[in-house]
């Protein structure tokens, strides 16, 4: 790891001020992605701004038909939260399956969403559930937030404060994990709210998380795995690596989508 200066702001305002002065600085949340990246020298920020001492950034609240999760809330806390388990069990299950227990004890939802790794789990949940990402400056709909691999709508000096998830009527996440890294080879989050159906796919596309609109359309008629029968996703633009070819991943999207819908209607 290269040397950096380290700052521990006490408020979001201070953090925003620091990052505005140094646009190459990195915000540190749980560090479960940033630190390994820095250790491999794939990132060498001149400054690290640690969000750990900012009060009020972690916590889970139910507000009517919405669950609001603070950006610094750890995966373990989302996974075991009574509120999340009751309101959006699919989201709790997703969080409980990220990485391993020690990683879940430090990694945060805000960090995961801000990083937008093409194989991360949370972006799929945000997109499928139609979440709103609340920053220190504005509210961003998930549809506008994720803009391609490691790219988001976040502007310089913009910090995620919390994420609001509207309650679905049915939802489930099905993940085919890479057996070594536990990242999704392909993960599909299926959600239904009223007549709206959303299928968000992570791990598959080199553009990062995306909605499988043809699948959504088919499910709008009848929310059943049968509706997806015979549908396929083009292999164009899918990630191809030692873990799986583009064709394989495209095929997995269909398989995992069916599994997600099966689980969703089973609840």
């Amino acid at each position, binding site marked *: 790891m290269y040397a950096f200066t380290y700052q521990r702001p006490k408020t979001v305002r201070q953090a925003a001020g620091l990052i505005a002065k140094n646009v190459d600085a990195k915000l540190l949340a749980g560090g479960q992605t940033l630190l390994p990246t820095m250790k491999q020298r794939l990132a060498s920020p001149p400054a690290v701004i*640690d969000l750990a001492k900012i009060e009020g950034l972690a916590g889970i609240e139910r507000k009517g038909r919405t669950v609001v999760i603070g950006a610094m809330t750890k995966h373990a806390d989302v996974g075991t939260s009574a509120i999340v388990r009751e309101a959006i069990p699919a989201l709790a299950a997703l969080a409980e399956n990220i990485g391993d227990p*020690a990683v879940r004890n430090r990694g945060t939802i805000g960090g995961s969403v801000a990083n937008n790794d093409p194989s991360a789990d949370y972006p799929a949940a945000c997109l499928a559930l139609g979440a709103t990402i609340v920053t220190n400056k504005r509210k961003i709909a998930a549809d506008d937030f994720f803009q391609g691999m490691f790219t988001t709508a976040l502007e310089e000096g913009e910090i995620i404060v919390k994420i609001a998830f509207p309650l679905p009527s049915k939802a489930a996440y099905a993940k085919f994990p890479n057996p070594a890294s536990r990242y999704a080879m392909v993960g599909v989050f299926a959600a239904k709210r009223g007549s709206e159906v959303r299928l968000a796919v992570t791990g598959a596309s080199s553009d990062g998380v995306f909605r499988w609109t043809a699948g959504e359309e088919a499910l709008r008629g009848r929310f059943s795995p049968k509706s997806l029968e015979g549908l396929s996703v083009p292999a164009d633009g899918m990630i191809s690596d030692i873990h799986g070819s583009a064709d394989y991943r495209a095929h997995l999207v269909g398989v995992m989508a069916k599994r997600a819908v099966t689980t969703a209607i089973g609840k």
Partner: protein
Amino acid sequence: MTTVTMTVNGKSVTANVDPRTLLSQFVRENLRLTGTHVGCDTSQCGACVVHVDGRAVKSCTTLAVSCDGSSVTTIEGLAVDGALHPMQEAFREHHGLQCGFCTPGMIMSAVDIVNRKGNALDEHTIREELEGNICRCTGYHNIVKAVEAGARAMAPGATSIAAE
């Protein structure tokens, strides 16, 4: 340099460290607590697991400066007055180790599992929960047995094996 103050195994320590110092480096090199091992240094193997504010974390993927104000427990902090912790005793009793390299992390993770999931753990739960701890020697079988027995022995009122 950044000043960091934390409680390690019940003792308060303050140090001036280069901010890039990992918690694993800090406990091993600054505090000379070499029971915490570094296997992969890439957050996969779990040899470096310690507890920060009561929760298991990978110390190779945590900055020491991020633990300012926290309470850290390493494997050295488990035994009380020279008597092994029930989980340590269970690893000895069930031969839950061969070379021992992964053992500190296994035990710290195991204690964390008990803290979260209670004293009656089935094999499936233990195997799932040890996801982030890799052992190159044992084939896990005896580790799983040790964790199950250690979990029972940690129950309030259980007679520890050591006391028998």
